[in-house]
């Protein structure tokens, strides 16, 4: 059974490699200012959401050569695609051409993987003036949704220098998880039972937040991204020693936080401010909850795919 793919496509220089490096915590590839297009498929050998593999493709660039190559490899590229993420550079001066390539990709998707989910990221929004951002984004969104018919595309505006990138990818992951609503209910129950301040569910490879329950309000809305960045840096350090990150416990007089493997696709983070609860108790509860959540995940895997065109 061939692995399903996540295609990350866009014009050369639109920010795909940086994005991949940030989301998947890889050291960034040497020459991001390539003079030529990416010919080779860049596989990231990461199990993303269990059974997805990320492929990165440049679209456009060296006209004729690219078109030919593209044409001959098309079926190969676009078969078995679960998700297409297309990146647009908001600063691009060649809007017509960008749309042209985008439409070519859509045609290929329609032919080879009509069930795929389409996401469009309007990227590098930090280069646009703040008061113009909404306007420009809405304009592009309308345009893209019109062009994408009969397929549906979900648009996000992103920049690596604010929280929008993390949020966009978290939304994408959220939409890809089959029974996310049930997961959220269970998570809330779990939090109530163990009397935690907050429980987070992270995707395993990217530490994107899939779902969270907040029983005590927290003033910092950026905390998910910060925790994710910290853990990804830690994973980078671990990889230097050829070690795998498994779990973490952080404790002081005000709180205790536990990060541990949960199901085969997720990590859980439990934060409790009641310092009288011994660690062993919380860890035991987490271990017991694991079984329930794994059952939930197995159920969804065995169900016929509920992912269709949104």
């Amino acid at each position, binding site marked *: 059974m061939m692995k399903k793919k996540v295609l990350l496509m866009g014009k050369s220089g639109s920010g795909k490699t940086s994005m991949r490096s940030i989301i998947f915590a890889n050291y960034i590839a040497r020459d991001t200012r390539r003079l030529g297009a990416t010919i080779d498929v860049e596989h990231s050998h990461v199990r993303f959401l269990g059974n997805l593999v990320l492929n990165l493709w440049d679209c456009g660039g060296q006209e004729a050569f690219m078109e030919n190559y593209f044409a001959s490899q098309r079926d190969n590229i676009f078969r078995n695609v679960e998700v297409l993420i297309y990146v647009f550079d908001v600063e691009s001066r060649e809007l017509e051409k960008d749309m042209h390539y985008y439409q070519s990709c859509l045609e290929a998707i329609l032919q080879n993987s009509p069930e795929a989910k389409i996401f469009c990221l309007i990227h590098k929004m930090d280069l646009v003036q703040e008061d113009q951002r909404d306007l420009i984004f809405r304009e592009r969104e309308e345009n893209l949704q019109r062009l994408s018919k009969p397929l549906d595309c979900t648009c996000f505006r992103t920049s690596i220098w604010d929280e929008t990138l993390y949020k966009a990818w978290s939304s994408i992951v959220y939409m890809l998880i089959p029974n996310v609503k049930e997961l959220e209910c269970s998570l809330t129950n779990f939090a109530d039972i163990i009397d935690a301040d907050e429980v987070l569910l992270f995707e395993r490879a990217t530490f994107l937040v899939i779902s969270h329950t907040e029983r005590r309000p927290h003033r910092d809305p950026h905390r998910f991204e910060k925790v994710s960045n910290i853990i990804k*840096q830690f994973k980078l350090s671990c990889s230097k020693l050829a070690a795998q990150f498994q779990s973490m416990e952080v404790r002081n007089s005000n709180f205790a936080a536990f990060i541990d493997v949960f199901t085969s696709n997720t990590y859980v983070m439990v934060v409790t401010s009641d310092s009288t609860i011994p660690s062993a108790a919380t860890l035991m509860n987490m271990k017991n909850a694991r079984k329930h959540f794994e059952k939930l995940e197995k159920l969804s895997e065995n169900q016929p795919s509920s992912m269709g065109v949104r």
Partner: protein
Amino acid sequence: MIRDVDAILQDSDVASEVTLDSSSDLGRSSPTSKGLLVRDSNAKQRTRRPFHLQNAIAPANRAESPVVIDSVPYDNAQEATYSRYKYYQRLRGPTIGNDQALLIPDHVVPSVFFYPYIPGTVPLTGKQSSLITIFAVWNTMMGTSLLSMPWAIEQAGLVAGLSLILVMAAICFYTAFCILQVYGIYGEKENLADFPDLCMFLLGRVGQWVSVLFSALSLLGASAVYWVLMSNFLYHTVKYVYDLITTTSVTLLSIDDDNTSAFNLFCPDPIDNLTFSSLLNGPIFQNGASTFDKIWNLDLTVPIYMALLLLPLICLKSATFFTKFNALGTVSVFYIMAFVATKASQWGVHVEFSDTSSPFYVPLLRSNFPALSGMLSLALYLHNCVVSIMKNNRRQECNGRDLSIAYILVALTYLGIGATFYLTFPLEKDCIEDNLLNNFSRSDTLTVIARVFLLFQMMTVFPLLAYILRTQILYAFFNSIYPSFSHVFSLNVILLTICVVFAIFLPQVGTITRFSGALCGLVYVFTLPSILYVVSYRKQNNGQAPAWVYILHGLIVLCGILNLIAQFVVTN
């Protein structure tokens, strides 16, 4: 497991800070073509501070109250930006080189890190103009040797003295310049801080130990000199106040010679080295001495009182408080210059070149001239910090010129003060004391002011000297500048004991200065810079060096050795 985690997390934080160097910190907005060209020119011209948020001591419940750092509330968005910044720095990895990817652009850095642009001003570059550098060099070299310069010139004879000053200044300038040149080749590349590191790099462990040892010796010598002077000033000041309180008559306290009482000047008895027998016969145990004189005694008790007074000060963990008084040093130099000028104008010139029996006879050359050269090795000594000072020069290519101007100014100052005092001194020339204030009576107003002021100034410098000495020794032996209070305390007690012993048994500033100057000068002024230059020259030229390099520097080292040996030949 927990310990490994600590180590790894520590590493990741450090790594993300370490990759932050000034050139990589300037980001361009995006890796598109326009970003490429401006980057290199901007590397030199920094318009913002490095992006770094301090770790704040967060209030108890961080979830609810905002964090205030440096009284600037960093909001959540800025903290989030900083978190991203650190993470992306990490992702750039060790081999990224000059690549633009994931560099933070200027428009994302919080505005507090930028310097406001004020038209017509030059942005803060942290560099100083040549004039300021020259002044800094002059200021660093000017020290208490000024008080001993007249005595030293008297020891050498007039012409010998003047030419010796110029010759020594030339040699010291040349060796300091050698250090600068060698540092220019290796310092930036190897990230060396100063002269001792340079020694360590080029000469290995031996070089490092030698430089630490002799640096410690020179600091010890300087401390002993400071101690003698401080005890002297303290003694005279308190005795003056005491006499002022106890005498009822308004007349001046009687001094030995009447004809010089107009100048408040006198010729003190030569100090015999204190031995135990003279101690026993001295004022403390003599029956006729007053109680005050028994308690407050220059030879024995005052140095000990000073020790009790200063011991708590030098045991402090950090000496930065005392650096605030740095300006006093400059003021004291100018005061001494004004003092000598005033006195000289009052006395008028008193010189006699041919008649050897006259009290004003000024020989052109005396056999004691090594005393001057020994003292000058310490007076013109800058070599262990010349790099740090010259590094801040705005135009580095002018370093040689600026350093030479500074040395000329220093030589002229010493020359001027020393020669002026020497030529105008109205008593026998060989009465000039190695601490020129000793020649003045206790009640002379200008002298009283000088003593009080210098006492205060030295009391703020001595803890700094002790601190530097302590950190060098402790770091060399224990690899930490503050291993524990007991270490520091015992070291300080040893230091003070040595100082007190010098003050009691050898309170002669001139002797201490010339010996420590010659010894430390041999290593730091003559030998090490020459060796460094020769080693670096050979390294640059594949192990070859022309004969003149060896000869010239060999001569310099020979001068240093002769200087040291000659100190033992000087008669008091």
